[in-house]
């Protein structure tokens, strides 16, 4: 293996003089006394190799020894990833001793002693290729497939396969013979370099299946698809994290991966604390059972922050290859971009806009492209849905990270300061936000089947009411309450009904926090029926009083168990109230 000696140090960028070949992005270890610090090669000039160290370089000296590993940054894939809390380099945080993180302390991310109940799928003589399912183990009630390692090229023949039984991850599960007659042993564990996409699938169609999140402003107004991509930009304090947590708790996914990338440690702790207690609304089991957390909080080393999003995506792709639905949430991709900026800055590269690297939007694009809904080689389907948050500097959406993301993400949930200031949560602006998926004919067909043909036109109608409401509000602001006809007030308050009853949702109320699709349909139909009627008012103050009472009753319904006696009671009161003023059509 190639070795080297430290020649220069600027913060976490270290120059190394090497005695042999090195590869771009190769991992090396730098020795500070007895401690090994992991680093990644990011530039090579002659015999000088520039490596970014994933830890603090305090005390590092010129002449310190460096060892190269011959491989890029890899993750270890196998059963036992679920419910784990990893750092950006896939160290199991729970296995680390001590209150403080010690630099140079790395560990194996899986449980090497645990026995897994294995059931073979492939048979002796089967022809298999990379990612083919050889067998499965039960990992927290998920069928965790033991696959032909992704690095295997070409076709192999199954020479032997382990019998059903209990095995640890390092035991040989199958022996595969390649075209040249050479045998290869396969265990439950494999490795994959994080910066490469796992492409072992047959086809990646456009996403078309609704991914239910229980959040009305998403599912009803701007739906996200299985295998789709979306992003949530928002100035701080607009409820980005609350919204993201709500989605990760409620979304209809088999596996949820949360990449806490350069964000607050207390937010990760919230997930650590709540997820083992909370129940998955779809299966009734604990949320933590289906969750993997990659925590690289803002005070952890910057370079591993960059690695953390790739680590998360690779694990997501791994589970997708098993035919599972994976939801990956990264908070926040801006912190990742900032890590790139810090490094590019130290490398003295010519900066692009706001001192970000020139190829930032290409890097973002390539990353979002790894998400998707796929048909695997065996015909099964799997998906990685990716939702990233962006923290635009100064709340300005014209900055490079937001713009780079907007080009590639298909859904956009615009969090708005003005809505947040008025405590209208989730503060997603219904007019600026969009979901490109509603324009896909395949999605339209899917929704027509799942709900009915009228649904999307009705949602569109709802948006028209909101748009109209906004225009009228501006006119009222200019002309005054009595400067506009009473009808205008009626129109405006209809849009307020939609806002208060459909768009706003109380993430801290047990019942309102999750709104299943069936309930969303009921409420939207109810609200749209209110909107489509005409009312009999003489003066605008009556309009305001009346619709406030309407909103109040609808909100009380949102707080009640669906179709419970109280719920029906409020519905009855609402119908009576509506009958008072509604004109017969």
């Amino acid at each position: 293996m190639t070795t080297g000696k430290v020649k220069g140090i600027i913060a976490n960028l270290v120059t190394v003089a090497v005695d042999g070949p090195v590869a771009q992005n190769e991992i090396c270890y730098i020795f500070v006394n007895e401690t090994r610090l992991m680093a990644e090669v990011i530039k090579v000039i002659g015999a000088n190799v520039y490596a970014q160290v994933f830890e603090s370089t305090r005390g590092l000296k010129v002449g310190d020894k460096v060892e190269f590993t011959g491989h890029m940054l890899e993750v270890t894939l196998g059963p036992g990833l679920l419910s784990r809390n990893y750092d950006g380099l896939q160290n199991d945080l729970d296995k680390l001793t001590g209150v403080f993180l010690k630099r140079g302390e790395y560990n194996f991310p899986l449980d090497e002693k645990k026995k897994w109940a294995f059931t073979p799928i492939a048979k002796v003589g089967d022809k298999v290729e990379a990612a083919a399912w050889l067998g499965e183990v039960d990992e927290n009630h998920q069928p965790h497939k033991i696959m032909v390692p992704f690095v295997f090229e070409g076709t192999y023949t199954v020479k032997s396969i382990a019998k059903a039984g209990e095995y640890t991850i390092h035991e040989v599960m199958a022996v595969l013979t390649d075209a040249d007659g050479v045998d290869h042993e396969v265990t439950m564990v494999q490795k994959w370099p994080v910066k490469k996409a796992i492409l072992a699938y047959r086809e990646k169609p456009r996403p078309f299946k609704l991914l239910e999140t229980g959040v009305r402003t998403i599912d009803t107004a701007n739906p996200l698809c299985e295998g789709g991509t979306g992003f949530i930009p928002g100035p701080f304090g607009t409820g980005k994290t609350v919204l993201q947590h709500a989605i990760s708790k409620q979304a209809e996914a088999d596996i949820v991966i949360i990449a806490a990338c350069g964000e607050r440690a207390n937010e990760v702790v919230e997930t650590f604390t709540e997820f083992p207690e909370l129940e998955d609304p779809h299966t009734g089991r604990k949320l933590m059972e289906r969750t993997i957390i990659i925590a690289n909080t803002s005070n952890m080393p910057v370079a591993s922050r960059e690695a953390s999003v790739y680590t998360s995506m690779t694990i997501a792709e791994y589970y997708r290859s098993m035919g599972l639905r994976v939801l990956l949430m990264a908070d926040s991709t801006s912190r990742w971009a900032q890590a790139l900026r810090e490094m590019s800055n130290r490398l003295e590269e010519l900066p692009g806009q706001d001192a970000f690297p020139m190829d930032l939007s290409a890097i973002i694009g390539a990353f979002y492209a790894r998400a998707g809904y796929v048909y695997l080689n065996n015909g099964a389907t799997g998906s990685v849905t990716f939702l990233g948050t962006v923290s635009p500097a100064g709340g300005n959406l014209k900055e490079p990270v937001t713009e780079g993301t907007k080009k590639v993400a298909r859904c956009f949930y615009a969090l708005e300061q003005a809505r947040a200031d008025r405590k209208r949560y989730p503060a997603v602006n219904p007019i600026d936000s969009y979901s490109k998926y509603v324009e896909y004919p395949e999605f339209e067909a899917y929704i027509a089947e799942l709900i009915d043909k009228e649904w999307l036109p009705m949602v569109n109608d709802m948006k028209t009411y909101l748009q109209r409401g906004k225009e009228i509000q501006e006119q009222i602001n200019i002309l005054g309450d009595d400067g506009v006809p009473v009808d205008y007030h009626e129109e405006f308050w209809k849009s307020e009904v939609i806002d208060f009853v459909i768009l706003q949702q109380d993430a801290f109320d047990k019942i309102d926090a999750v709104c299943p699709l069936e309930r969303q349909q009921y409420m939207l139909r109810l609200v749209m029926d209110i909107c489509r009627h005409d009312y009999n008012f003489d003066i605008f103050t009556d309009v305001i009083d009346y619709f406030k009472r309407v909103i109040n009753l609808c909100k009380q319904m949102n707080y009640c168990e669906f179709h419970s006696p109280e719920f029906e009671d409020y519905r009855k009161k609402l119908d009576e109230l509506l009958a008072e003023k509604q004109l017969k059509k």
Partner: protein
Amino acid sequence: MAKAFQKIYTQITAITKATCSLKAEGVGNDELATVNGKLAQVVKIIGDEVTLQVFQGTEGIPTNAEVVFLGKAPSLKVSDQLAGRFFNAYGEPIDGGPAVEGKEIEIGGPSVNPVRRKQPSELIATGIAGIDLNNTLVSGQKIPFFADPDQPYNQVMANVALRAEADKIILGGMGLTNDDYLYFKNVFSNAGVLDHIVSFVNTTENPPVERLLIPDMALTAAEYFAVEKHEKVLVLLTDMTLYADALAIVSNRMDQIPSKDSMPGSLYSDLAKIYEKAVQFPEEIGGGSITIIAVTTLSGGDITHAIPDNTGYITEGQLYLRRDSEIGKVIVDPFRSLSRLKQLVAGKKTREDHPQVMNAAVRLYADAANAKTKKENGFDLTDYDIRCLDFARDYSREILAIDVNINTVQMLDVAWSLFGKYFKPEEVNIKAALVEKYWPK
């Protein structure tokens, strides 16, 4: 300062305003050195050329200055003796007292493993409704005041510190005017709490680059009391804008490419390293905590500037002070202020109606603001508008003003009585069960 075995270098090859370089061997990154007695730190090593950042500035440093490497990063001696003392940025006493004996710890140490943290859940009561009612603070939280330089932020912060019942209060003063330094000293002495207080102070009279050491000094002391002594520690950092300015100065002298607002590209990480020291430890490791209340002064109220902007993304909320012209008093602005951790205690450690009352009151206060705009534009006000305006005035005077000192139950009761005075239950939009229980009869 040199010890017998230490090598002395006397050949300086380059001098800039903040740094000097020399040829030296066996030097570690981040290591301290003295240059003609002035403290300096290694910031760059290229081959045998070592660049030192001289904290006091390089004025008067000759090319034959004596350079001695100390073999350690900046550090602080910690023990109970820290209590009641005032130090400069290097951790040296400035109150005339003796040097502190104790374990020497390098400042700017490693981060807490996130899985060893506990979710913050203890309420920190301040008696200020703009905080306790609308933006409840929780131990282990980090939150800044975003204030204009002319606002009384240091006074409010001193008040919060005294009422917060912390075991230790650690003041990190960066670019503090001498007047403010003496103000803190007096307030703490007069309150008879000096023995709970440790101060690290860099005043405007000291070189700006020295400020860079203050937060790490203060937090190293805080970590000692929270981890080893299991204490509830409150850290006050004022003013973080001046800290960031010092970062910009250094990065500029190091020829780094500036990003937004001439700040270094690493500003986010630099600030996060400080603020993320706020932590609540679980009972198994003693249950200590570090809570950080900081001040970030704004220029012309601009929160899109890189310093407040990055801060806002790191801290768990922010508090704004505002002068309410209706009542002529300073209030904690209910619209823009936010404590992100409030839901961990609101309605759990406080009365059940807290979250809904808080939201309803702020919503009505917002309606009042709209009504005011309407009035200013010359439109007629509805009956509801007028009631909102009346409510807002009472709400400001009886609850929000920072000179009001009442507990949360009282705050909630006053809020309900104001709801009852001006509104009908359906205008307040609170869950029926709570209205049933608390609406004034």
